[in-house]
């Protein structure tokens, strides 16, 4: 009896000791050719979709190692493409993104939780010189050496001061903006 208890304790300690080693997140970067970062805004009551052509994402993630997971995403705001040059120019301009002063947006995660359908990351988004928490919901599908990361977030543009002057009004441009992404991850070189 005592031997069996002792054995269990030893095995238990061994398992606990082994855990951190097993639970290290794998490090990836997004493959730019196969990844996209999109957004959907509402303008005059109708949705319009756009994308950011240039961004980098460093992703440390493993489903069994949420404590050591970490995302770091840099978005080149100049690379916005809403399929209309006039609109893109206006968004880059001083009253909206003001890319002359704030050329990039930056998202860094702080913590991760498992949900019924995937995971939620809590992180801070720095956009237009303002840093605010924005949660993202995502699914992670690992394949040998690579992985797929797909998810969504929603934010309020005015939280970040995106929209000055006339553009502060939400009558014709909605405050809420939806973000979606699909990242094709490859091992960090």
């Amino acid at each position, binding site marked *: 009896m005592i031997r069996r208890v002792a054995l269990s304790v030893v095995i238990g300690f061994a398992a606990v000791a082994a855990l951190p080693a097993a639970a290290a997140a794998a490090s990836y970067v997004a493959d730019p050719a196969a990844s996209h970062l999109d957004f959907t805004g509402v303008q*005059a*009551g*109708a949705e*319009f979709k756009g994308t950011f052509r240039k961004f980098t994402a460093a992703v440390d993630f493993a489903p069994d190692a949420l404590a050591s997971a970490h995302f770091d995403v840099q978005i080149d705001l100049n690379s916005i493409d809403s*399929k209309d040059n006039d*609109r893109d120019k*206006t968004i880059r301009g001083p009253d909206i993104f003001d890319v002359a002063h704030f050329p990039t947006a930056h998202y860094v995660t702080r913590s991760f939780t498992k949900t019924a359908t995937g995971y939620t990351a809590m992180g801070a988004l720095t956009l237009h010189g303002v840093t605010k928490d924005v949660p993202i919901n995502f699914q992670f599908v690992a394949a040998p050496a690579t992985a797929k990361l797909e998810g969504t977030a929603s934010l309020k543009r005015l939280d970040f001061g995106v929209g000055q002057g006339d553009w502060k*009004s939400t009558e014709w441009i909605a405050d809420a903006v939806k973000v979606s992404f699909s990242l094709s991850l490859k091992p960090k070189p």
Partner: protein
Amino acid sequence: MPNGASATRYSPVAQLLHWVIAALIVTQFALAWTADDLPLGVHKLALLARHKSFGMTVLMLAVVRLLWRWRNPPPELPAGMKPIERRLAKATHVAFYFLLFAMPLTGWMMSSAKNYSVSWFGLFTWPNLISQSDGAFIFLRGTHEVLSDALFAIAVLHILAALKHHFWNKDDVFVRMLPFTKSEKRP
């Protein structure tokens, strides 16, 4: 005669459709001309959003109007009109019906080509008719403008003709489209 139509007057429904669409078209020109002079901004977006909502309203009313006209044929033209006048009147009305559809449809396609989907007063969004394309947008904008010039010209002709009928010919062609009147001036 059913639905309040008579041999000499338009039905109240036809009169209502005529005057509501006429008022919408006047508004459309005012909105388009004002928006044209503005840089891309909230004010321009707001004007064009209304322009699109009114335009889609015209398109829906045009469908109703054509169906109503099919079920309730309009009154005959006065017997004294010359064949050339009849042909001109017929051509003007055919052109109006063509433009009642062509103006909103080219506008809707323009918006689709520029990836600015058309909302109807923020209540719902119409699907894009074509996919985004700079070339298609430029072509459609040109078409929409040429058609709007044609619409303006035909509307001027239409108004002058109505006034000529009323004051020169002294027949009931104008009055029979006027609500709350009686057609008594028929020669």
